[in-house]
């Protein structure tokens, strides 16, 4: 049905590294990428992050490139629109459709390329985080960030129940499929409704049971968790510094640069 990136994160060797260091790397990459004015900066970021994810994070390269193509549909349609509608100046090429002239200006094409590069750069940063840091590691970060207890609590329980319900949903779906429940549009719609309704009712009962079981174990609205101390080691710090320096250098030298 669907792959969960968390499964890979739990096995990743980078899991045992300091969470704040990883968050700093990702946050820096995302911000530098989104505020860059030339496609080279996000491209550099994408290159570094993909290398780090595949090489240090031991993620299969084939799988990595497969998930990098996930946003492709949305991004390609949108950048075509941007290329045609954005920017002024002389058109690089144009053609007539039903009496309207559609043209791509150099400004529009530059913008489209920049957006494409930014999306790839941003997604590779996001993948670095989600493929090396399981969500359980991030809950302590959320707590330290002083988010309301009920918010963190609900996110934690939700995290647990996502896997429970995915399991239930996959089981039901499999059972429906082997009984030809998805063989044409009408039956698959019917199966989908049954699946959704049963999932809702089952989740509700599960929630009531969860409340009872937690209450009988003296739950008072706070789950305490263990936050492991992981000092940042010198080589990691050095590598991060080199990465920051490369990106900042590229950022500085390519200000306002465009390809076309």
């Amino acid at each position, binding site marked *: 049905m669907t792959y969960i990136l968390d499964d890979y994160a739990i096995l990743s060797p980078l899991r045992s590294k300091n969470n704040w260091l990883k968050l700093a790397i990702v946050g820096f990459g995302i911000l530098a990428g989104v505020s860059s004015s030339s496609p080279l900066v996000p491209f550099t970021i994408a290159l570094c992050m993909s290398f780090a994810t595949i090489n240090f994070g031991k993620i299969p390269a084939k799988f990595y490139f497969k998930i990098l193509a996930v946003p492709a549909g949305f991004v390609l349609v949108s950048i075509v629109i941007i290329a*045609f509608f954005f920017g002024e100046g002389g058109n690089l090429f144009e053609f007539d459709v039903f009496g309207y002239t559609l043209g791509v200006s150099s400004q529009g094409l530059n913008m489209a390329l920049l957006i494409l590069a930014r999306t790839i750069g941003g997604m590779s940063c996001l993948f670095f985080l989600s493929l090396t840091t399981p969500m359980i590691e991030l809950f302590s970060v959320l707590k330290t960030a002083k988010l309301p207890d009920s918010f963190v609590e609900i996110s934690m329980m939700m995290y647990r129940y996502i896997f429970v319900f995915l399991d239930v949903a996959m089981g039901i779906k499999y059972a429906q499929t082997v009984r030809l429940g998805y063989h044409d549009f009408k039956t698959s719609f019917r199966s989908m409704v049954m699946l959704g309704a049963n999932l809702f009712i089952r989740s509700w009962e599960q929630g009531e049971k969860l409340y009872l079981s937690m209450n009988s174990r003296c739950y008072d609205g706070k789950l305490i968790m263990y936050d492991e101390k992981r000092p940042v080691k010198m080589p990691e710090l050095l590598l991060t510094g080199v990465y920051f320096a490369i990106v900042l250098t590229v950022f500085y030298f390519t200000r306002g640069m465009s390809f076309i």
Partner: protein
Amino acid sequence: MHIFEGFLPSPWWQAWFAISIPVILYGMYKMNKLVSERREVVPLLAVAGAFIFVLSSLKLPSVTGSSSHPTGTGMAAILFGPAITAVLGVIVLIYQAIFLAHGGITTLGANAASMAVIGPLVAYLFYKAASKAGMNFYLNVFLATAIADWVTYVVTSLQLALAFPSASGGVLASFAAFAGIFATTQVPLAILEGALTALIMKYVVQIKSDVLVDLNVLTTTAVTKLKEAMQ
């Protein structure tokens, strides 16, 4: 449709954060109040959030075979109200970004505005207004969730159009282009999601109607009436 990481340039991603953060804070305040009054809702809200996530990760059977999935937030808005749906929706969006590579961090504000704030709010207002006017419950749920799903896409198109205005026609021209592609293709899917949610509700009324009464979605008399109509 989620806007992916890095797609919105600055001032726009910050602007959408500025719009959605107050609503989410208000939702958190509401949720904290509800939780301190009735502690048993914490696990219920958590499983509801997980349900939205799983529902939104199921592929809808669509005619073209494209990968499209229900947003699930319209249903949550009818059940829990828009403020709490905003908070649950944000958590779901963060999980979708991190687990499924759908969405992003800088675009979280924009995605939250369309999917967790505006869509559910529209669904909720429509549902309340129509149930006051005495509309049939299932038709009401169908319309409310279908409209919420569709509005989500219109808002996404608007967000893209505002960030990338057309040189000749301004925001309006590029809005027409984005909406022409994203909002029109979404119409059949919105109808499908509406029908799906209405039928799910029918099952819920049949099997576990006390939940709907607990959540103030329906009154006891309305439930008995619906049950009588089914027999």
